[in-house]
């Protein structure tokens, strides 16, 4: 594909023929729009992009794009995406999923993906509930959320993904809102262009099991301060904000992790595919 052709790609070029089965009103529709808008802006042809997910409503997203996709095992989007990016650094790799998939079942992978800082973009569509399985509380559900499933609420302190990501070493941290697809798309573009592991936490209302989240549209607001490259300052800010600040919150300068055999294009020992010994060497120096 020539540069001239690439400039003419539109968001529609990144949408598949499959139609989303999300509930009308779901924030994930807008996020899908934002992803395809961002792809068009980046102008990498669909065959050079891979969208990797786990399980859940939002994890259906690879099927709705025209890029390569992998709808993986619950909570395992990040290890799949990490493996793909390490073996094919030429691809643009995006991991996507929800708060339950990413922060509970995949919580340990989330920590180590931040720590490894492979050049990935991780999109978490956070609706603070397990929607696909009919409304159980997730790691980010407020403790007082009362429902038939958890009468009186869980009473548990919610997980704070942005602070965890900062502490674990993520190189780019942002919060967005599904109701702002243009703003979300711009953040995604910045995240994709930034080297290393980028987390974009996108508030995405579940209108079926958390109808009160429709009110988020009135609560979100742009962050009052510019992004920072100071990890401690960013952590202080996100710990003390109201949870509805949107924008890029942290932009670091850690060099992405990339094993020498992949970066150099040379084949690892034993043939064209990376062998266990090579990964052992890279991950356990």
């Amino acid at each position, binding site marked *: 594909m020539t540069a001239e052709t690439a*400039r003419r790609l539109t968001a*529609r070029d990144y949408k598949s023929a499959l*139609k*989303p*089965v999300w*509930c*009308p*009103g*779901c*924030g994930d*529709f*807008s996020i899908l*729009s934002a992803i395809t*808008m*961002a792809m068009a*802006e980046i102008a990498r042809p669909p065959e050079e992009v891979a969208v990797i997910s786990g399980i859940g409503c939002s994890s259906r997203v690879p099927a709705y794009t025209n890029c390569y996709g992998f709808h993986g095992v619950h909570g395992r989007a990040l290890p799949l995406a990490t493996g793909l990016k390490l073996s094919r650094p030429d691809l643009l790799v995006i991991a996507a999923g929800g708060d339950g998939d990413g922060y509970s079942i995949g919580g340990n992978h989330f920590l180590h993906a931040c720590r490894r800082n492979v050049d990935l973009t991780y999109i978490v569509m956070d609706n603070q509930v397990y929607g696909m399985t*009919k*409304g159980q509380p997730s790691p980010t559900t407020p403790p007082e959320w009362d*429902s*038939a*499933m958890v009468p009186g609420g869980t009473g548990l302190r919610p997980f704070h993904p942005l602070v965890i990501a900062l502490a674990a070493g993520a190189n780019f941290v942002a919060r967005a*809102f*599904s*109701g*702002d*697809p*243009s*703003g979300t*798309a*711009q*953040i995604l*573009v910045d995240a994709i262009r930034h080297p290393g592991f980028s987390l974009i936490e996108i508030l995405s*209302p579940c*209108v*079926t*099991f958390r109808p009160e989240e*429709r009110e988020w*549209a*009135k609560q*979100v*607001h*742009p*962050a009052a301060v510019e992004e920072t490259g100071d990890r401690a300052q960013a952590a202080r800010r996100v710990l003390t904000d109201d949870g509805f600040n*949107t*924008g890029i919150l942290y932009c670091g300068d850690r060099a992405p992790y990339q094993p020498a055999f992949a970066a150099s294009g040379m084949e690892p020992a034993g043939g064209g595919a990376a062998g266990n010994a090579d990964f052992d060497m890279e991950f356990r120096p």
Partner: protein
Amino acid sequence: MSGPEGPKRGDQGPLAIAATDRETLLAHAYAIEQEAAERYEALAEQMYDCGNEEVAGLFAKLAEIEAKHAAELSLEHGAANKPMALADFMWEGLQSPEVIPFEEMHYLMQPHQALTLALAAERRALLFYEAVAGQAANEDMRTLAAEFAAEEAEHVRLVLEWQQRYPEPEPDWDDDMDPPMSL
């Protein structure tokens, strides 16, 4: 449009656009119609999937109208010619003015409600062009924006007439005998 302003993206809104040039205004005008068409098409698909065929049909019709309008803009004014990066668009709100936010949808929505959303979208577009026309940098842009505002005013009138053909929903319009939250 519901909700507060979006994240900071430089100068925004019709007044900022009024201070630019004819090509930038045309690029915004084309994006308004094209994004509205695509959004109506997506909303129609959602409603078909839910078995709400009457509302799906309305949205499909609106998608056709907006797509035709986008094509006219492209043909008559070359409105699709200027390449624009995401960051170059200067929308005042969270999205371009004529799209219905996905979050406003409900699977049991009735035609009157669907057309109420469409009417609000047309009115946002009308206000947008009126504001550009009122502050345009030159006579050419003022004339163009006023022409677009007149078209949107006509759309507002037509959608209002269309809406009045349908009854307002009963208070229990969203009652579902088999709701998803049945635990």
